[in-house]
């Protein structure tokens, strides 16, 4: 089994929040005021009307991430916070990548795009736009490969994450975490 809650520098938390004016501001303000770093943030409507769901990728050691989750929970407009363990979740983001290309190298780019199961969604005489869906590592890897053709612009949505089946086969939480959960932390 890998680390308790994913890697040290990219820890994923989701939050169910009220869809009201100013809520995003309250949340980002808390991050700013406490000095926490958001690596990425994605927001959209949830399955419940009037509520949105946010996915945060937070940088920091486990103690810091625990404080982030608790401080999120403390906000009145935040209804539920879930610490999404990397080993038990599906994580995806979408990226649009504009790459410089010409007739000579277009097919070479298309091959790379195919390997990544990405799509070319726009072609212009001197560039094309690649659309890719995957976890950050996959998106990073594709961008890295496309750099040799000169990447002109990158748009990423930020990661969204969802825990895998919450059934009985879900791995039990480690002792320390369970103790904290039991004590209401």
């Amino acid at each position: 089994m890998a680390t308790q809650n994913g890697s040290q520098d990219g820890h994923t938390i989701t939050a169910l929040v009220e869809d009201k004016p100013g809520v995003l501001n309250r949340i980002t303000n808390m991050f700013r005021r406490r000095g926490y770093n958001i690596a990425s943030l994605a927001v959209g409507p949830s399955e419940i009307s009037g509520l949105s769901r946010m996915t945060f990728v937070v940088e920091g050691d486990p103690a810091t991430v625990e404080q982030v989750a608790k401080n999120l929970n403390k906000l009145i407009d935040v209804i539920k916070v879930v610490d999404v363990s990397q080993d038990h979740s599906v994580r995806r983001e979408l990226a649009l990548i504009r790459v410089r290309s010409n007739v000579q190298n277009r097919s070479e780019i298309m091959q790379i795009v195919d390997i990544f199961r990405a799509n070319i969604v726009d072609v212009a005489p001197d560039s094309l736009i690649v659309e890719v869906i995957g976890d950050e590592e996959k998106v990073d890897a594709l961008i890295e490969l496309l750099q040799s053709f000169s990447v002109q612009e990158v748009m990423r949505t930020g990661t969204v994450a969802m825990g895998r089946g919450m059934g009985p086969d879900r791995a039990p939480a480690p002792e320390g975490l369970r103790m904290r959960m039991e004590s209401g932390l």
Partner: protein
Amino acid sequence: MRRNGGQIVCEALLREGVDVIFGLPGGAILPLYQILPEYPELRHILVRHEQGAAHAADGYARVTGRPGVAWATSGPGATNLVTGIATAQMDSVPMVIVTGQVGRAAIGSDAFQETDITGITLPITKHNYLVMHASEIARVIKEAFYIANSGRPGPVLVDIPKDVFTEEVEVEWPDKIDLPGYKPNLKGHSGMIRRAAQMINSARRPVILAGHGVIISRAYDELRELAETAQIPVVTTLLGIGCFPEDHVLSVGMPGMHGMAYASLAIEEADLLIALGMRFDDRITGDTSTFATRSKKIHVDVDPTEIGKNIPVDVPIVGDLKRVLIEMNKRVEPADRLEWLNEVEQLKRDHPSMLVRKTDKLIPQYVIKEISEATQGKATIVTGVGQHQMWAAQHYTFREPCSLVSSGGAGAMGYEVPGAMGAQVGSPGKVVWSIAGDGGFQMTMCELATMVENRIPVKIAIFNNGFLGMVRQWQELFYERSYVATGYSGNPDFVKLADAFGIFGARVTDKTQVRPAIMDAMKFDGPAIVDFVVEQEENVYPMIPSGMSVNEMIEEPQPQEALR
């Protein structure tokens, strides 16, 4: 029942049991003020500056346990509240603040006296609201009071545009609160409580570190039961002072930067630290890496974010202190712990840091002792921030909960006068002494007029050393006595000032005049000022310099003169 927004605000406040409002009107909040005469049960106290309204509401809340209410208009009226709101947030004081806002159509246009006060107060309120329809007011005010005074209390601000006050709607009073994102965990985890009790029973050198939470939760009887049953010495934080009687044999005073040396040392020597409703502030811990390294730690707090924030904890318990202690006490076994208590007594003998130096000079510690004796420790003491605050914490013998009211976390100079005003309004029968610095007093002394107007008989002791004393002390100790911008050479004549306000005033320059002046001030029917012209370069000892450990404590230089 048709009501306009202003009427709904007033009726909602009455439904929450509000009897007094501290405020100052202006254009945007005027429609609310103009209907106030319809509600004579709401007593409005007109302050001279909105900071005074916020601090007064805070002082009122600290002594009554009920949310204090402050009103101010938009723009500068609202921003003037900010220091007071931050103070309440840092010290977990329940407050509901209503501010007027420019009309809805003008919001965002930089209209006259428009300020984004919900934006400004976002990080210094527990929650805040901008109310865009009169139909929301009843619900919002109900939620505001519930949020302010449940869980870990704090200030809640409600910003209402001018035309919402005049908007007429059919009012519906909500009978319950629906806040799915706000469910304070009050009960405390029974397994953790059991584990904590076991640790207490097997500890040899336990220390209780009791904070403001004991007072907020009204858990003093339970604390006393725990301490007496298991014979555990009790150390209190600055804001915890009064939660355990200081003349009790198990009381070991206040630890930390300017706490009693023996209290800090007892924490160091402990094998179990039972932290109750406190947050391991840096003024308590100093260097966190060397703080109380020999002890296991139990931490009980209603706010989960406080647990593990500064100090790692062995047994975390999230819950209301009173409820947790009731459960814990059922499992704590009687013990005598004579050996440990003797050691603590020995620490007290070895570090008699709280004795007042015997001298003919007028020293501030002596004045505090005299006020303590003259009031038999039964007054409510409201302090500003700085040296006089620490001397009051050290030398006044507090016996009752809520008897020390002080700006702890925020450290807001200027709290002493309006804070005392609010405390006096909240406890009309009590003697309230404002322990003021000459610096802090001049920040908010305009509220003397409010006291005169509203017959609020606060007694003010100005510790007049002609300096921003604590800053001067740091300059003396850490900046080679280079007194940059700390001397107050142009202080007014405070006795004449008292005279100008038509209140009692006296100046004391000699030890022999101290007690008579205190008694005269208390005999006077109304506010009173005693200007104690004390030694200018007196320092607060002991002192653990900022960020250092208890080993680096500076104790009072051995006095040439004998100790009293």
